[in-house]
């Protein structure tokens, strides 16, 4: 079949099972858009309002579905606008393929109009990238792109296609990629390592499980839950691991790290065996490494060999696919309960409840609405079945700390990169990927204004996402640090905001603003009952802080409750 490169791009996407792409047209990608027009019955293109939105929407789609998200942009500024989303997907291991147009082969290096070296720019933040300069390369390279993006530890791939390669015709045929000689996506599981790990786990008096997104990416939720239940070991999560185990599971002891729960942080430095699954010991989780779990023997189940001993020295590393590792591990694990040890977590949870959570959920002294009680209200009405997409800042920490989740792939947030502006477009992608689920974006007044233009995408596509703005008229997290560590010098953190409801209404999105606590219940109920998209602005107490908190560079056991 003799077809143009541009048509081949579309046919390759269809071969890879893609039915939805996010993008923004422009000069160097026009041949591909022309084919998108012809194939619109099979491949739906969502026009975003800024290319960054395309990447975050593709990420939201990928995180909600486990499939590869796709974003398309033109050359030059179109391509550079993708970079933040690509970097976010890289650090959060999100499978994504970005396709950019490029000036014609003969113009490369001539500083042509809208020419930019997107291969050079994207190299440090992509799992792989490639510039196609001949049409005949398209099928093989796109097949490789999808294989690389989704296999092993997933990540973003960028394919740059010169305009001549889009126009030129060639004999098309497609073959899926099944392997690359220089790339081992999943290290072979060593059963002796599993046996060693099992022996150490069985001998532990105070074992503690910490889990990350690897459980979700490896689709190992059921195996993981079975292990937790059989072993009776308390388990805590990183923010990307959240929702891999239901939040109300009796052995789920909460969140690790800087704004995590009191028990799991303190007891990290009390456990005798620390068992990590699919997580990378990020500094926000470990605090000061020199005093992190030094008393414990560490077992690390991980797919990426480069993560072993990167931050925390392991006693036993079990490389491989976590689903397979867990299946091999489970029969070797003694059925136990660690009640006394588990009670230590419960006692510390009680301390945290009495000093932090109670006040957050039921503010006293005439304080305004808190972020925590807003999340709790969403829990009440969603019953823990919603996908929560949070942005970055205080509201994100409240969302992760207080939201309830019954099922996996339900917490979507920018963890590693901390990208403000992530949530609104990511929520669009999540809802399009999982139309049957309720999707609630929780965003601060700062981050909202970084990608506010995606309200236009919501209006145009009528995607029924629910948007909750927790407005404290501050860049709240930075303000909190200024209060705690910079003597209350609020440098450039006060926000003078526009009338958000009027803006949302300008996009014909049903809106409501809540300023009084007594109106919150009904407003959240109305929002979640809405069949259409809904914008809810909640005016929250301006200078609340997120606690507990481990100050930067402090030890996990130095966690502060106030």
């Amino acid at each position: 079949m003799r077809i143009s490169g541009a048509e081949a791009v579309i046919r390759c996407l269809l071969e890879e099972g893609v039915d939805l792409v996010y993008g923004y047209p422009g000069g160097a990608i026009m041949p591909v858009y022309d084919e998108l027009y012809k194939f619109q019955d099979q491949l739906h293109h969502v026009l975003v309002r800024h290319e960054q939105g395309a990447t975050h929407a593709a990420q939201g789609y990928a995180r909600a579905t486990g499939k590869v998200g796709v974003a398309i942009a033109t050359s030059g500024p179109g391509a550079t606008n993708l970079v933040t989303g690509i970097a976010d997907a890289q650090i959060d291991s999100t499978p994504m393929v970005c396709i950019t147009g490029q000036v014609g082969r003969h113009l490369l290096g001539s500083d042509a109009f809208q020419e930019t070296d997107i291969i050079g720019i994207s190299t440090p933040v992509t799992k792989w990238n490639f510039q196609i300069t001949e049409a005949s390369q398209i099928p093989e390279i796109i097949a490789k792109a999808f294989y690389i993006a989704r296999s092993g530890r997933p990540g973003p791939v960028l394919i740059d296609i010169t305009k001549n390669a889009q126009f030129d015709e060639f004999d098309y045929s497609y073959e899926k990629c099944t392997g690359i000689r220089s790339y081992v996506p999943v290290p072979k599981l060593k059963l002796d390592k599993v046996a060693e790990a099992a022996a150490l786990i069985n001998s532990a008096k105070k074992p503690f499980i910490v889990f990350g997104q690897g459980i979700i990416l490896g689709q190992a939720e059921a195996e993981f839950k079975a292990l937790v239940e059989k072993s009776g070991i308390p388990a805590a999560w990183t923010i990307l691991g959240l929702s891999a185990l239901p939040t109300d599971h009796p052995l789920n002891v909460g969140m690790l790290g800087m704004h995590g729960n009191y028990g799991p942080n303190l007891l990290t430095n009390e456990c005798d065996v620390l068992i990590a699954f699919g997580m990378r010991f990020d500094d926000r989780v470990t605090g000061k490494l020199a005093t992190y779990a030094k008393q414990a023997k560490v077992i690390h189940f991980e797919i990426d060999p480069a993560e072993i001993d990167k931050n925390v020295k392991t006693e036993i590393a079990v490389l491989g696919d976590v689903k397979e590792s867990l299946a091999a591990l489970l029969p070797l694990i003694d059925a136990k309960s660690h009640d006394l040890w588990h009670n230590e977590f419960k006692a510390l949870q009680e301390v945290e409840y009495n000093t932090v959570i109670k006040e957050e959920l039921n503010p006293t002294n005439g304080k305004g609405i808190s972020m925590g009680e807003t999340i709790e209200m969403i829990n009440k009405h969603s019953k823990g079945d919603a996908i929560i997409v949070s942005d970055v800042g205080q509201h994100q920490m409240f969302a992760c700390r207080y939201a309830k989740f019954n099922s996996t792939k339900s917490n979507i947030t920018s963890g590693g990169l901390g990208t403000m502006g992530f949530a609104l477009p990511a929520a669009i992608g999540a809802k399009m990927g999982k139309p049957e689920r309720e999707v609630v974006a929780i965003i601060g007044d700062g981050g909202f204004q970084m990608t506010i233009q995606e309200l236009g995408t919501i209006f145009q596509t009528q995607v029924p996402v629910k948007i909750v703005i927790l407005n404290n008229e501050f860049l709240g997290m930075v303000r909190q640090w200024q209060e705690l560590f910079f003597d209350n010098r609020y440098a450039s953190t006060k926000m003078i905001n526009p009338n958000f409801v009027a803006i949302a209404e300008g996009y014909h999105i049903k809106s409501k603003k809540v300023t009084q606590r007594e109106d919150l219940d009904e407003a959240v109920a109305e929002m979640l009952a809405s069949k259409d998209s809904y914008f809810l602005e909640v005016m929250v107490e301006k200078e609340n802080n997120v606690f507990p908190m481990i100050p930067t560079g402090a030890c996990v056991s130095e966690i502060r409750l106030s």
Partner: protein
Amino acid sequence: MEDKTFTISVYSENNVGLLNRISGIFLKRHINILSLNVSESEIENVSRFIIVVNTTEKWVQNIVGQIEKQIEVIKAFYHTDEETIYLENALFKINSSLLFDEKQIQNIIKESQSTIVTVSRDFFVISKSGRRSEIEELYAKFKPYGIMQFVRSGRISVSKEKMEISTLLETFK
């Protein structure tokens, strides 16, 4: 952990952009590359990088992990100086008149076991392979007479222990 000299050997596909990807790993960690040699290995389309850095063993492990993670990298290793046989090559371009006017020059060439690559009316070129210190010694000897041009290559090295890559590459053939 103290800084040491490490030689990193990388076998990779011979693709555009991979050098950028690998050098970026050093850039991100603010580690300066002391010497870099990239050439085709004994296998067609497989490149071999030899990168010399001065850093801690912890960092070099981290770097090698990140290099090996790159899709088009087949295998990466690191070795200390004691674990490798290594040398570099240098070329000296010297005014031809010295060859005849300064008798000492011929002795220097003989004693240093360097070879004359070419001689022309205006200049001659000497090639010397060896350790950095041997080349520097030779440079110091020629310097008083005047050196028209000098260049040295990056380090090339082979490891004393077997690199499993040889068999790995065989299976790719």
